[in-house]
């Protein structure tokens, strides 16, 4: 099972953000821009962290922003945001964070299909620093082992 499609507009590289809320906001904006989610999903991802704390920081430097399925999830999607300067989420071991994955799923089951693939990619400890250092969206996508979605213009990828 492969990861969900990752269009280049779902990737934001080298952002400057003041805090974790803005970082999660960027991951939410990327999901929305790529057509995966509608308005409201970003706030729900922030709400999960407000309610349960920084447990979404699941590895050193990496946050997996997500919320429950809901009407604001149009189709399953993944987004990737890397930060120019890392921010603290408040996690006792894994702060500071410079890579944020945004995740949107329509049902719990659907999610479990590609989570194993996500684990495969991230079980390699070198992937998080490599993503943080990636110079552009196409490099991020290739590090994750994801191919361009059908119909995406190859020249777009080269020029971005």
């Amino acid at each position, binding site marked *: 099972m492969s990861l969900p499609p990752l269009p280049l507009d779902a990737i934001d590289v080298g952002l400057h953000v003041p805090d974790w809320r803005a970082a999660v906001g960027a991951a939410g904006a990327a999901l929305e821009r790529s057509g995966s989610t509608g308005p409201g999903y970003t706030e729900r991802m922030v709400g999960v962290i407000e*309610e349960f*704390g920084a*447990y979404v920081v699941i590895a050193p430097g990496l946050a997996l922003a997500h919320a429950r399925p809901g009407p604001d999830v149009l189709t399953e999607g993944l987004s990737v945001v890397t930060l120019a300067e890392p921010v603290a989420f408040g996690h006792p*071991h*894994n702060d500071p964070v410079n890579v944020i994955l945004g*995740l949107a799923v329509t049902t719990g089951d659907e999610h479990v299909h590609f989570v194993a693939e996500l684990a495969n990619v991230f079980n390699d400890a070198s992937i998080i620093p490599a993503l943080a250092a990636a110079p552009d969206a196409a490099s991020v996508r290739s590090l994750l082992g994801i191919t361009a979605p059908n119909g995406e213009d190859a020249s777009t990828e080269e020029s971005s």
Partner: protein
Amino acid sequence: MKIVALCGVGIGTSAILKVNAERALERLDIEADVTAADIASVKLAAADAQVILTSSELVPSIGKTNADVIIIDNFFDLDELTAKLETALG
């Protein structure tokens, strides 16, 4: 043997923890049933569990339990998961 992988909303991080816990158990050659759960369902899910795997952030939300609570720092680190599971179950 039952193990619960716990996260806040039960879809993102708990599923990753479940997948990697199963990989660690395979390394240890231990048979166990790993269930993903969220805070809302943990009481029921963990009622007959030996071990709860979770993030330090969520420990206060678990409340009273007879299961061993194991804090995992890096959900992708199979060495950490294997070592902590081996200590808890060995």
